[in-house]
């Protein structure tokens, strides 16, 4: 038995069972068990029954969207890369650093072969010969588990030269990041993967045209790639999972003041309320106050019936749900989020570098009781101008949560100006 650094006991209860089928228990599934429970059959099927074009069509029909947050249709991304000549590269983005997100970790640490199989099929569809897994520096156990799993897969002939006796060759390399949130942004990730500082690139050209080493590159999230074996296995039956247009399973990492925090797998036809119920309801019977969707949005009690899909009105994103109870303060939480952005801004674009700093300082004034109504206007001004002055997703979303809170919890800001914190946290 190999020694692994300790895997955290992250809860993985769910209502359906596709992505987390083998990941229920707190251990790593080895290749033996993976193969006997039907693993790598999708790869076999893909290589023997389908052409690469068939797989791209399958993924397009499945309406699979990027599970890393942006929700871009995966099939379309692949199509863009395929319109450019080879060599092409496939990158798996395992740099999940969004506050409250730990869904990819479950797949990486407990069922790494699902990801490897998905990457091999995606590599076949894209005509790529080399794939990278960019895993964040804070997951040393994950990196080790993946490296061992890849080695096992090579020995069994699921990776390497002439996979399963076919013409197709594909290999995966694990590359560790070093603690920078910005490297989850695909162009910054590519820069970091090339061995540079992780500054995002100006787009266009998009990675599908000019990516890693200047070659066409597809960057997909761990969960997205883990969906590929399921799509190949189920083919058109995949369209029976979940609501129309948003097919397939989705992982929801839920944390904060709920009874059973953890990762839950579900179809996307549930609402925020269902998800909180699934996680055992509010801890200690406290009253619900607000949900933070990572650092990207604020959902109040009135939004509890929001569907958890990628529609314009839906929850979308990574599915990250941080639940706050009545005794938590909005301003206090926003300061934590603002500190996060101030710390993680890479410094390339001035509006983001300076704006996130100013945003934090203004929010701190609310907590200290020195804020005036002018400060609300300043926050709104920053919220309008940081996104337009930035070139990447970090800048686009740096003030989302604050703008959302200003719309939905404006009273709290005024209460703080008067020197009164409704939750009793500040002052």
């Amino acid at each position: 038995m190999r020694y692994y650094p300790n895997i955290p006991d992250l809860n993985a209860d769910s209502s359906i069972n596709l992505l987390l089928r083998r990941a229920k228990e707190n251990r790593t599934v080895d290749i033996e068990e993976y193969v006997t429970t039907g693993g790598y059959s999708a790869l076999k099927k893909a290589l023997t029954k389908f052409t690469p074009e068939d797989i791209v069509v399958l993924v397009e029909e499945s309406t699979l969207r990027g599970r890393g947050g942006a929700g871009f249709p995966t099939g379309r991304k692949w199509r863009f890369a395929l319109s450019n000549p080879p060599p092409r590269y496939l990158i798996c983005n395992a740099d999940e650093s969004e506050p409250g997100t730990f869904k990819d970790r479950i797949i990486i640490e407990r069922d790494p072969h699902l990801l490897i199989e998905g990457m091999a099929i995606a590599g076949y569809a894209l005509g790529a010969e080399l794939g990278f897994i960019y895993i964040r520096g804070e997951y040393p156990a994950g990196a080790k588990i993946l490296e061992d799993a890849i080695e096992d897969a090579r020995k069994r002939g699921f990776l390497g030269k002439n996979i399963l006796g076919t013409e197709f060759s594909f290999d995966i390399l694990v590359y560790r990041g070093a603690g920078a949130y910005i490297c989850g942004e695909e162009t910054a990730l590519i820069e970091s993967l090339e061995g540079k500082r992780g500054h995002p690139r100006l787009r266009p050209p998009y990675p599908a045209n000019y990516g890693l080493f200047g070659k066409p590159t597809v960057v997909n999230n761990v969960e997205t790639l883990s969906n590929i074996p399921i799509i190949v296995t189920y083919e058109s039956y995949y369209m029976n999972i979940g609501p129309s247009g948003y097919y397939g399973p989705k992982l929801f990492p839920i944390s904060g003041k709920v009874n059973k925090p953890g990762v839950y797998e579900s179809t996307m036809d549930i609402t925020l309320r269902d998800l909180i119920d699934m996680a055992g309801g509010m801890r200690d019977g406290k009253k619900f106050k607000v949900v933070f969707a990572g650092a990207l949005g604020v959902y109040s009690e009135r939004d509890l019936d929001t569907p958890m899909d990628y529609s314009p009105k839906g929850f979308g994103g990574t599915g990250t749900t941080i639940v706050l109870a009545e005794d938590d303060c909005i301003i206090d939480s926003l300061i934590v989020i603002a500190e996060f952005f101030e710390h993680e801004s890479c410094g390339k674009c001035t509006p983001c570098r300076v704006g996130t700093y100013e945003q934090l300082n203004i929010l701190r004034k609310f907590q200290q009781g020195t804020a005036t109504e002018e400060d609300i206007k300043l926050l709104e001004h920053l919220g309008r101008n940081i996104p337009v002055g930035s070139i990447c997703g970090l800048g686009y979303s740096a003030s989302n949560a604050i703008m959302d809170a200003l719309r939905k919890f404006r009273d709290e800001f005024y209460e703080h100006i008067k020197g009164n914190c409704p939750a009793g946290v500040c002052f």
Partner: protein
Amino acid sequence: MEFIYLTEEIRQQIDKYVEKFPVRDQAVIQSLHLIYSKYRDIEDYHMKELSEYLQVPLNVIEGIVSFYDMFRVKRGARHHIRVCKNLPCHIMGCKNLLKMFEKLTGEKANEYSKNGRFYIETVECIGSCSIAPAFMIDDDLYNGLNITEEKLNEILSKYT
């Protein structure tokens, strides 16, 4: 040139990276990880040796070290405690946990270690929000919910 800090073992690992990756520059961050996990600090002399060994300009390596959080911070300690301070851990009481750490180790958070045993760093999300408040000591992850001083002391005593 003789290498003092890049031991035989580390150099073998670096050779593997150079062989594995298509471009030599890609080995830099991975090699820095090796140095980091052995010395828990990246100093000038480490960078100089790495630059010499990999034949990558020193400014490139310095640029990487100053960008990535795991390498940038000077710790001066054998063990590195990372306490998550992001939203899920914040609302579950990471401040109490931090106070306990400060009391037990006698170090101040985010300050250069005094006696060279522990460095306490408050970090952004470490992706373990369901066991919030979470903390890492070196490469090991722990659940900080309902942790007592006694239990924490027991954990700390494993790291000498």
